């Protein structure tokens, strides 16, 4: 299929998400407003009020209820979407596990924001990084265009019959959510065709019949009841199996989408940038990778062999792809926009060092905690990180494995 003719719109990240949801033929949206996510549901409620969509919009009393409504809607076979940030995601914590455990393919936009206290409405990744173990797929985007593209892809990934796992799409609060960008949008009918309608695998019900996996009074079944030491473990193993096949499905959907949109983000899991001959690399997620790319271009023009590895998919962790992408790099700086207090660095650092332990060659790997609570991370700071890596290679020594950057010290 040829790349479709597209319409360029001026949208901020939140509006781009709302627009993608509008085009994705969503049955149920249940949400509660929280900065910096509010624009998403605000815009979407306008689409509902103006009759542009036939979605059931449920105004709930909390995020706990928002996700519960989406999970139950999805269990009946509906396509469901919600969006939240920070404290809202924290309040959903319990239901995140219930949603994935019930294999309800809900899609949720997380507009990444710091957690209190002290109260802060600006970006960091503390809210979603802490939820990395809840069996949701996590995709982090670099810009609003990718937010639009990823939401559309997310429905198709989540609802894949082999997978049936919920998907979070993380976009940086304010940096993306409130910044106007040119966003290329696909025609409505094409997006609708791309996401398609939900299909259901057959499962054996309590009546011993093979029935489609959804709640339907005509073909009754029970989803997610009590499950003690005799079967709980087996059900968790099934979720891990779904995560194991997820990279294949994410890449496949990403590739199909590239065919109609002409846009690619690496292979959908990772996006290597000038890594082929790089001696030093930064690994990061989210919008900061845009800043890093600018610095890479600058340093490359002066002949320094630097590169970037952007993790687009953080869950499932693309282990093989990370190993391969970093195999010839000699020094790696992992940037974390969240901190595991007392845990020797941030989540991304933990995982990258962990993956590289099994690699044939072991580069130096250091960690920079940056941008907490929306602290700006300028190109100067990125340059400093590359200078630090240069020094590590010259001295063959790591002074501090975990550092803070952009902090007044």
């Amino acid at each position, binding site marked *: 299929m040829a790349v479709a003719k597209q319409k360029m719109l001026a949208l901020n990240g939140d509006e781009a998400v709302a627009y993608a949801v509008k085009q994705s033929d969503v049955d149920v949206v249940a949400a509660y407003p929280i900065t910096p996510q509010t624009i998403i549901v605000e815009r979407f409620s306008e689409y509902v009020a103006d009759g542009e969509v036939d979605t059931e919009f449920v105004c709930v009393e909390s995020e706990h209820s928002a996700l519960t409504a989406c999970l139950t809607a999805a269990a009946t076979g509906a396509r469901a979407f919600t969006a939240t940030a920070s404290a809202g995601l924290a309040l959903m914590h319990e239901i995140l596990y219930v949603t994935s455990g*019930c294999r309800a393919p809900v899609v949720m936009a997380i507009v990444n924001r710091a957690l209190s206290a002290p109260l802060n409405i600006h970006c960091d990744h503390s809210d979603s990084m802490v939820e990395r173990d809840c069996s949701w797929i996590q995709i982090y985007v670099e810009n609003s265009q990718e937010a639009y593209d990823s939401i559309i892809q997310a429905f198709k990934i989540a609802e894949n019959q082999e997978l049936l796992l919920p998907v979070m799409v993380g976009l940086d609060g304010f940096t993306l959510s409130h910044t106007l960008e040119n966003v290329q949008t696909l025609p409505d009918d094409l997006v609708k065709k791309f996401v398609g309608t939900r299909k259901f695998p057959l*499962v054996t019900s*309590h009546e011993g019949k093979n029935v489609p996996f959804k709640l339907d009074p005509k073909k009754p079944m029970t989803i997610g009841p009590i499950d*003690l*030491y*005799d079967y709980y473990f087996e059900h968790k193993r099934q979720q891990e199996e779904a995560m194991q096949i997820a990279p294949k499905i994410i890449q496949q959907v990403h590739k199909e989408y590239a065919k109609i949109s002409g846009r690619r983000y690496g292979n959908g899991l990772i996006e290597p940038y000038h890594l082929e001959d790089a001696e030093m690399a930064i690994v990061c997620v989210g919008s900061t990778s845009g800043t890093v790319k600018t610095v890479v271009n600058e340093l490359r023009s002066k002949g320094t062999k630097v590169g970037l590895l952007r993790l687009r998919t953080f869950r499932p962790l693309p282990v093989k792809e990370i190993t391969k992408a970093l195999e010839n790099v000699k020094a790696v700086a992992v940037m974390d926009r969240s901190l595991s207090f007392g845990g020797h660095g941030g989540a991304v650092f933990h995982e990258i060092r962990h993956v590289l332990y099994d690699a044939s060659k072991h580069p130096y790997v250091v960690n920079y905690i940056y941008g907490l609570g929306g602290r700006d991370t300028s190109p100067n700071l990125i340059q400093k990180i590359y200078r630090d890596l240069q020094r590590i290679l010259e001295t063959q020594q790591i002074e501090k494995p975990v550092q803070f950057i952009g902090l007044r010290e």
Partner: protein
Amino acid sequence: MTTQEKVWKEIPMAGVCWKPSTQYLTGDWKTYKPIRDLEKCTRCVLCVLFCPDGAIHWKPEKEDIEFDFNFCKGCGICANECPVDAIEMKLAEET
């Protein structure tokens, strides 16, 4: 708890029940068991109505009630509600 041996690849996902709940015999959870005094019991069937597990049945042919110990968890609500104190909860292992 009924012993099962299916491996993770054989069971439906998301905890979908592949057999009816009547096949899960929950009666073996009990510590106490209701013992009825047939002399005191007036067959008012309040215990049938109150039993949260539906484990007490009215048998019209016998004009009497019957406990289903496969599902009675021994909660004691029947004994508590009985207006004539005809039900006593005794340690299950001693009955």
